[in-house]
């Protein structure tokens, strides 16, 4: 039964948090550096499960023998459309979910009771190319949220009330944020989006208690700084791109943050001659100072919108009989990379292997990892060129997963698609698309005779041998994967609204459930009072929805995939 309340007080009620919380304030367990470095199996304290970025859970109550009995136990409507891309974050029974439109929801993880809801107004005049959010971060008694309009907000975890907020960048000049923050040693780290708007990327670290800036490291060096000679034409560094739009991973033992950087800006490398460090790279940053300790650049003079946005997973692997402290990363450019974490913080190249059809690299130097580019497949100003895979790459941001028990890395990938485009010199307008090519002029094609487009590929992390694959003949794959000690791989990502569980060793599909919308968010898993749950948001939108429209024209696929976010929580039926 509802009662009409005057608008002002209702708004205040919504913003401040409901008084009807069933969850006692004293129950909240503060999150510490020690807990983040060694998270309890029953919790999901960060978006990729652990600092190494494995998207792995040690929980095994749900396993290959019983996953067929998985049923929904509660659901919750987020109340908004657009693409839902964050996993439920869980700390001892309290769940935090971020959604599009600058919203964070706190719920009882076992029962689905609403505890509080936070909504940050979107400023008038702000436009959202990617109206989404990829997750909150936890530290102490606070929840950290990177708002779309490039403001970092700290909320009280028990009440949802804002504790502080700090401006990260100016949205008027094209900066925005969609990533989950990374917390390390009392600092909250965020990057920026805006690679299509002429930005200059950076990673910033803020004091978790008061929001003051501790350090800022730019992904594009200024004149005189190391790497600045790779921007040969004056002033191109100022709007060179290298956006830092996905969450980094962290190695506490060496206090090193690994962060990915995005495409070069504008999109056509001939307008910014040089290797363009550190676009399309992984940076190794000192956790205390932000100083660049090392880097690896996946391709030079970036010209395909192939961001290296995801930080590599920290995985130790075997090579030539020795254990390598490694980094493993399936990149947007279509290659799976094995890299080394060196003692001095540097990143060494070990091996790269194509995991989709890629026609841009003629070869990769076995020592340095530097590709030799086929110029026939490199677009330029006034020069049309086609390239495979398309700008969305072998995979986009959705997470791969690593299972230490199977020793396999599971990669959500897309094949049999290509792009073509031609560049122009475009006038810069602050806050407007500035790539050198207009969206209706970007070519996208598929092989209409291909047996599949989206797939999951499982590779042995040591040998690179493909152990199994699952093909999706009628869908691209935009689903982040979760793998568990129950020998399972969970994922959505397809246009048929399905959420699936596979045998992690064989790829056999063991369970599926059709949800309300397309799932483009990472799943998470947690336990409360001895019961394991698997949770995922289902809410289609953003790039997958745009691409589905193109595929509908090309292949006749259904383009009306329903939108509207729902949090789904599953457990074993009794």
């Amino acid at each position, binding site marked *: 039964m509802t009662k009409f309340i005057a608008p002002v007080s209702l708004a205040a009620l919504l913003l401040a948090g409901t008084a009807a919380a069933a969850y006692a304030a004293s129950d909240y367990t503060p999150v510490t550096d020690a807990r983040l470095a060694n998270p309890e199996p029953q919790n999901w304290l960060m978006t990729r499960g652990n600092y190494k970025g494995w998207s792995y859970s040690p929980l095994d109550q749900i396993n290959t023998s019983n996953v067929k009995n998985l049923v929904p136990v509660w659901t919750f409507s987020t109340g908004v459309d657009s693409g839902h891309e964050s996993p439920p974050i869980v700390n001892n029974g309290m769940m935090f979910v971020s959604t599009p439109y600058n919203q964070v929801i706190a719920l009882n993880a076992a029962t689905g009771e609403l505890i509080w809801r936070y909504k940050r107004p979107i400023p008038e*005049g702000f436009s959202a190319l990617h109206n989404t959010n990829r997750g909150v971060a936890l530290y102490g008694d606070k929840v950290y949220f990177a708002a779309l309009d490039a403001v970092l907000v700290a909320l009280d975890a028990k009440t949802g009330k804002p504790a502080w907020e700090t401006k990260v960048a100016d949205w008027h000049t094209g900066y925005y944020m969609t990533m989950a923050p990374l917390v390390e040693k009392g600092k909250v780290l965020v990057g920026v989006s805006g690679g299509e708007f002429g930005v200059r990327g950076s990673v910033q670290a803020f004091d978790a208690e008061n929001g003051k800036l501790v350090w800022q490291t730019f992904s594009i060096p200024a004149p005189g700084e190391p790497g600045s000679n790779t921007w040969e034409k004056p002033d191109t560094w100022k709007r060179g791109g290298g956006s830092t739009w996905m969450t980094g991973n962290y190695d506490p033992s060496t206090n090193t943050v690994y962060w990915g950087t995005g495409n070069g800006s504008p999109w056509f490398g001939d307008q910014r001659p040089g290797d363009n460090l550190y676009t399309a790279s992984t940076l190794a940053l000192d956790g205390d100072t932000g100083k660049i300790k090392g880097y690896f650049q996946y391709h030079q003079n970036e010209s395909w919108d192939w961001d290296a946005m995801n930080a590599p997973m920290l995985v130790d692997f075997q090579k030539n009989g020795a254990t390598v402290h490694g980094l493993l990363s399936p990149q947007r450019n279509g290659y799976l990379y094995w890299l080394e974490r060196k003692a001095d913080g540097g990143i060494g190249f070990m091996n790269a292997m194509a995991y989709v059809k890629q026609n841009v690299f003629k070869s990769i130097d076995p020592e340095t990892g530097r590709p030799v580019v086929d110029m026939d497949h490199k677009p330029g100003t006034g020069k049309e060129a086609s390239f495979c895979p398309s700008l969305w790459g072998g995979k986009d941001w959705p997470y791969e997963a690593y299972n230490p028990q199977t020793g396999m890395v599971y990669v959500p990938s897309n094949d049999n698609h290509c792009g073509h485009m031609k560049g122009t010199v475009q006038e810069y307008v602050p806050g407007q698309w500035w790539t050198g090519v207009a969206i209706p002029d970007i070519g996208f094609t598929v092989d209409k005779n291909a047996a599949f487009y989206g797939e999951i590929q499982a590779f042995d992390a040591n040998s690179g041998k493909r152990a199994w694959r699952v093909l999706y003949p009628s869908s691209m794959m935009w689903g982040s994967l979760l793998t568990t000690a129950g020998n399972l791989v969970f994922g959505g990502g397809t246009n048929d609204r399905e959420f699936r569980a596979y045998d992690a060793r064989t790829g056999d599909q063991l369970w599926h459930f059709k949800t309300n919308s397309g799932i483009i968010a990472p799943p998470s898993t947690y336990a409360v009072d001895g019961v394991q749950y698997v949770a995922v948001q289902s809410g289609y939108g953003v790039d997958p929805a745009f691409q589905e429209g193109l595929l509908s024209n090309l292949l006749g696929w259904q383009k009306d995939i329903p939108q509207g976010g729902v949090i789904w929580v599953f457990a074993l039926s009794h």
Partner: protein
Amino acid sequence: MVEQRGNSCGCKLGRRSVLGACLGMVPWLAHADETSDPAASPPQPGDRLVFLTGEKKGQVVRVDDLPLGGPQVQAYPQDPKSGVVRNGSRLNLVVLARFAPEDLSEETRARSAHGVVAYSAVCTHQGCPVNMWSNELHVLFCSCHGSMYDPKNGAQVVGGPAPRPLPSLPLTANSDIPVVAAGFTARVGPERY
């Protein structure tokens, strides 16, 4: 469905964005007072339009400046008396395009000047500028998610996720200069503003 706004102040939202975002509804709109900040005021009758970009950036748009048949140009309204350009709010961004008058729908022709039409440039989907053009379909194309609007027919949505047409900005002609005849015909921008 297009909301009709009769008064010349237009449809610019006031400072109710908190309520609007939280409740998804705005029972009333506060109109910016023209004298408080003319640069942020919505387009007023008599305003000219000035180019946002290009060789004639900042100059008044004339009919012959616009290529017949598209594409559109981006412009902000300008107070002819004071010269103030109303670029204090992104909600005032306008697109202009020129067509043969007989190619316009009757309703669109009534709001045009010498075949020049003007619309809000703010996409009704997520607020991105509708500053791209489809050479294939000859329609306005949004720079974010592919919403397409037909400039010859009231900027009706002809593709993509936009929920409603772009508001029209009725024009009249002062010799060869398109001039604002009335404020936007509907609320500008996406639902959440």
